[in-house]
């Protein structure tokens, strides 16, 4: 009973921690521009992250090796270094985007200077990380993120044409560059590389073994599937409210507007609170992921459970990544723009992250009986093919559409 309860708590945390600023921005814009037409892309992205998170968690639980260890082992030093540089650049942009997002949400709640809130946000994160154990961090932000269930309630309250919503699950034949750009964006927002870096390193932090494989599978499949419901609800509420009015959601505050329209101030506060927890959790995940990757590649001691004294270089690098991200946000670049660039550039780094996971998870000599089965293998290779196509298309689409500006 206790084990089931623990697994259920893990799933709940995975649901609440599923969304980050990339999902909030891209899914809301996708709904405003294309109504329900891009729901299929969100769903495809959610299945993709579930498939690869399950693989990376399984590899970590069976072998005790997190993703970047595997990347260096499989690709060797040179290509591994390229993967490290690419992932680090994307991770730093992502941390900056999440910190900027946090500052925007705090500004909407308390109306003071944005730059002050950037500093407040980063200091608050450092204090929270210093005070809470690893599991506590996951639960705090994961449970808090559940406030965004108000988006699901908003979607139900709006009473949209559910037939049209269901039709959004079928890919439409629109081939305009803007549509394709948002296909890449919504798909990539769900598959950000930091998520599997953090997930697999988190498995080591929580000392998973083969006994945790069931928990891993349930977290990845049920947790991410329910998290996907939140992601789809963002598209629905935006498609219902913003699309007919021609609203262009270029500001993070607009994401919370449908909940205000549906449930007044309570809805607004729930939405802003949920966004705060999701984006705060993602800021910690992405900053940890950047430090995990660096430490694992260079063979340093790493891990929140070791503490700053036993893993000093890991801790210093984490603080350094936060400091660089603060400088980027304080330079005056719009956090929503940083988000769009971090999501699109992450697509280029995706193959370097996912290919080694796919190889090692399918290697029977390494994984034994826990190697990929037929379904995991098929899904993994199909998704890898899709990732390659998206990686090739992402930068041209970014340029052609002027960053989604049309």
């Amino acid at each position, binding site marked *: 009973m206790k084990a089931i309860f623990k697994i259920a708590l893990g799933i709940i945390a995975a649901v609440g921690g599923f969304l980050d600023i990339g999902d909030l921005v891209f899914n809301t814009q996708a709904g405003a521009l294309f109504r329900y037409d891009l729901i299929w892309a969100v769903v495809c992205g959610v299945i993709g992250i579930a498939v690869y998170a399950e693989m990376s968690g399984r590899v970590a639980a069976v072998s005790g090796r997190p993703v970047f260890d595997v990347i260096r082992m499989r690709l060797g030093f040179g290509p591994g270094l390229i993967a490290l540089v690419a992932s680090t650049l994307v991770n730093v942009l992502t941390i900056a985007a999440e910190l900027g997002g946090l500052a925007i949400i705090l500004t*909407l709640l308390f109306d003071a200077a944005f730059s002050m809130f950037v500093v407040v946000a980063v200091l608050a994160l450092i204090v929270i990380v210093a005070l809470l154990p690893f599991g506590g961090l996951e639960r705090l932000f994961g449970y808090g993120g559940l406030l965004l269930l108000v988006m699901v309630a908003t979607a139900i309250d709006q009473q949209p044409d559910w037939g049209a919503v269901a039709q959004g699950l079928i890919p439409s034949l629109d081939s305009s560059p803007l549509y394709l750009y948002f296909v890449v964006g919504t798909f990539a927002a769900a598959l950000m590389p930091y998520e599997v870096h953090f997930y697999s390193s988190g498995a080591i932090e929580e000392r998973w073994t083969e006994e945790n494989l069931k928990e891993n599978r349930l977290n990845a499949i049920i947790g991410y599937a329910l998290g996907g419901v939140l992601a789809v609800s963002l598209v629905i509420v935006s498609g219902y*409210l913003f699309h007919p009015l021609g*609203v262009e959601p270029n500001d993070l505050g607009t994401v*919370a*507007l449908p909940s*205000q*329209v549906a449930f007044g*101030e309570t809805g*607004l*506060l729930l939405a802003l609170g949920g966004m705060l927890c999701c984006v705060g959790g993602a800021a910690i995940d992405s900053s940890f992921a950047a430090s995990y990757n660096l430490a694992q590649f260079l063979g340093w001691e790493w891990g929140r459970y070791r503490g700053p004294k036993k893993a000093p270089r890991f801790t210093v690098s984490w603080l350094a990544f936060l400091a660089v991200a603060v400088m980027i946000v304080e330079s005056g670049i719009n956090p929503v723009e940083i988000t769009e660039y971090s999501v699109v550039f992450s697509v280029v780094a995706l193959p370097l992250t996912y290919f080694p996971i796919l190889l090692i998870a399918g290697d029977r000599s390494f994984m034994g009986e826990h190697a990929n089965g037929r379904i995991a293998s098929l899904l993994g290779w199909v998704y890898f093919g899709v990732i390659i196509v998206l990686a090739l298309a992402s930068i041209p689409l970014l340029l052609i559409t002027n960053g989604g500006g049309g």
Partner: protein
Amino acid sequence: MRIAARTAVLSAVVALLAGLLGGCGDLSRGELSRGVESLSALAAQGGLVAKGVAEDGTKATYARVMAKTLGGEAEHEAEKLADAEPEAAVEAQRGEAVAVARELAELFAELQTYPGDERHGATVQKHMARAKAQADAIAEGLTGEEQ
């Protein structure tokens, strides 16, 4: 002789280009139409924020910050449209669009000043709806499509 002919041809080309460019302007019908659509979108979003204020269904800080951000966008759009040199055929619509953008900026300023006042919220909501209708009418005139 050949140099004189070449100079004459070059001068004619330059004169022709100058004439063409002078008549064209740097703001085409399509660009103006996109600018006006942005104004319509801003008015719609402003209307939703104002509705929250009017119904006491929002948080004052949220309404103030949103009004400030959206007002800045309306101001920017007004400046962009006012600075551009329109094609002769759309000069009148450009003027109307600038007027709508300025009105929107003023409405957002009002919302920013009174984010907790329901009466002001209701007035701004009504004016936002009117500004949106004006923007849609301009866009319809430019594209020939009903907005």
